[in-house]
């Protein structure tokens, strides 16, 4: 899939968890490739494996992993073969960073914001000089639109929007190529959300950072999206340009998902998706969406391939083979 000069290439990535009811197939055979520059949004219902996908790529794993296989190339290097120490020193936070869900509420309350934001520099061995680290923190603060005065403050003195900008600064301070944002604005107010999306657009344009935005809020995701990945039940079902996803998605699930998004400015008839996603403990063997799909036919009892239908537009559906 694609050539080796792509920024990130994921091939058949699997991450299963062990639970007392059996293995949960949280991410099950995901393949895709990203270029440097364009931002990708990953959308899907809760529990479809969006956040787990980011954690699998960054190798941030809990203890109950039962299977973790596949290949991930970053700038042509297969990072799945690196040992943990090298992964930590060379990849995590240095090349790829993560703003995890609710990160703004996990800042340490008794440490000054500036020290926390510059911590990745020291931990990942980029800069050991504290003064230099603080100077760099000041720089990223300016980038995300926070005054340098806030470096001296404690987290409780910052509003929600300010804290979110601070954790974003923390992800950017090591100048990573790729930043995963897991629901970065869903706990914030509409106006704050919009100003943070403005900041992200500016960083994408001016610094060329590649963002992967994980969200269930499809309308807001369109603010940043150049490409869109749709996940369903642990698998990628469609991967296309933002234009194709928002205007004419091919997979029946993507179509239903788009039809359920309310619009402010146009009067459209909203639909909802009947039923619920399958359990990841024992997902159906064929197409995982077949039970809820209105266009299913005989072939759907077999698992469809994830195929390129042209223009780097991938669909996992028997209708488009």
């Amino acid at each position, binding site marked *: 899939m694609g050539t080796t000069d792509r920024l990130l290439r994921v091939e058949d990535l699997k991450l299963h968890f062990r639970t007392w009811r059996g293995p949960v197939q949280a991410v099950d055979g995901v393949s895709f490739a990203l270029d440097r520059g364009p*931002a990708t949004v990953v959308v899907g*219902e*809760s529990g479809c494996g969006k956040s787990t996908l980011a954690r699998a790529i960054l190798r941030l794993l809990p203890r109950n992993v039962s299977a973790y296989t596949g290949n991930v190339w970053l700038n042509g290097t297969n990072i799945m073969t690196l040992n943990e120490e090298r992964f930590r020193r060379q990849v995590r936070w240095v090349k790829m960073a993560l703003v995890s869900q609710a990160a703004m509420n996990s800042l340490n309350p008794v440490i000054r914001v500036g020290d926390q934001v510059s911590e990745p520099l020291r931990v990942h061995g980029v800069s050991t000089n504290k003064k230099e680290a603080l100077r760099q923190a000041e720089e990223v603060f300016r980038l995300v639109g926070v005054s340098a005065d806030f470096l001296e403050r404690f987290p409780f003195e910052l*509003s929600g*929007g300010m804290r979110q900008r601070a954790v974003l600064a923390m992800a950017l301070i090591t100048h990573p190529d790729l930043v995963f944002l897991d629901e970065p604005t869903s706990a914030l*107010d*509409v*106006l*704050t*959300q*919009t*100003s943070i*999306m*403005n900041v992200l*657009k*500016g960083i994408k344009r001016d610094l060329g950072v590649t963002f992967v935005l994980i969200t*269930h*809020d*499809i*309308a*807001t*995701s*369109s*603010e*940043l*999206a*150049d490409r869109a990945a749709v996940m369903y039940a642990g698998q990628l079902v469609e991967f296309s*340009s*933002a*234009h194709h*996803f*928002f*205007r004419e998605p091919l997979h029946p699930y993507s179509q*239903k*998902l*788009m039809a*359920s*998004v*309310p*619009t*402010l*400015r*146009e*009067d459209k008839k*909203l*639909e*909802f*998706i009947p039923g*619920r996603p399958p359990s990841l403990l024992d997902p159906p063997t064929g197409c995982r969406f077949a039970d809820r799909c209105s266009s299913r036919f005989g072939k759907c009892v077999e698992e469809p391939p994830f195929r390129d239908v042209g223009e780097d537009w991938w669909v996992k559906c028997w209708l488009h083979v």
Partner: protein
Amino acid sequence: MTEQALLSVRDLHTWYELRKWGFFRTGHVRALDGVTFDLRRGDAITIVGESGSGKTTLAKTLLGLVPPTKGEMVFAGERLDGKKKGKALAWLRANVGFVQQDPYGALPPFMTVERILSEPLAVHGVPRREQEARARAVMDEVRLTPQDDFVHKYPHMLSGGQQQRLVIARAIVLEPKLVVADEPVSMLDASVRVEILQLLRRIQKSHDLGVMYITHDLSTVRYFSEYVFVMYAAKIVERAPVHELIRHPLHPYTQALLTAISDPDPENAHIQKEVPPGEPPSLAHPPSGCRFHPRCKHRIAELCSTTEPTTFEPAPGHRVECWLYRQGGEG
């Protein structure tokens, strides 16, 4: 006050006391600061506002969970003062249903669906032989069917959408006149949000209920009610029919809010949106004059920062608290 109003709220204030060391009074947080409106039986209104704008405090005050500091609430001919006890409180609880934001948190994990629905009936003295029939009837209404599949289930065995339908069923099982729904869909996936809103809407119509839908998400409003109130910093700043508000927002805050809301459109990624600077004011020390003036790009020098705007009605049924519309005459 109109005769047919189901709920009539006049100049309602709810202030929370601020104390230092748990003892000295150091001021108030003005969570609700002079709210006036009427709600007729069978009408649905939406209250839109950001967090901290006072919308949840309004719900709590109406439900009698927080006593109002000042002002008047009349519900179905009864004055509410937040201090009701005994029979009067039971009457209020039976007549005002509440749908919470987080369905899982609102349901007792150790009770089955059947018990959750018959508990309010038992508390309000409905004979046991009627309880089951009424619980089943209400399950049919929220489409938790076939009922036999659900009656013995516990909340954790239901999906998010089913849990919220159960919360709605519990809210209407006593046949209330008014339902207050505080962010009923914000914890749910987009794919089930619509289903829940359509369900609430259908129940509202078929039972001739008054419904107060509280949300921060303006994009869902048009799928639910005809009339919207916009709250900012503890006050209602604009009220209008939904389509009118979306097409011709008048208050600079509403305009900013509408600009900020995205529709799923790939073109969004190529434009920077205009956002008013700053953040909502502290309700312990709200700004003088219009509360939006420090962030407003249309502010009128001297006037907006010193004098609180009164209500103007530039178009019939569309009222706004903003000095920009003073030529329109007071409404």
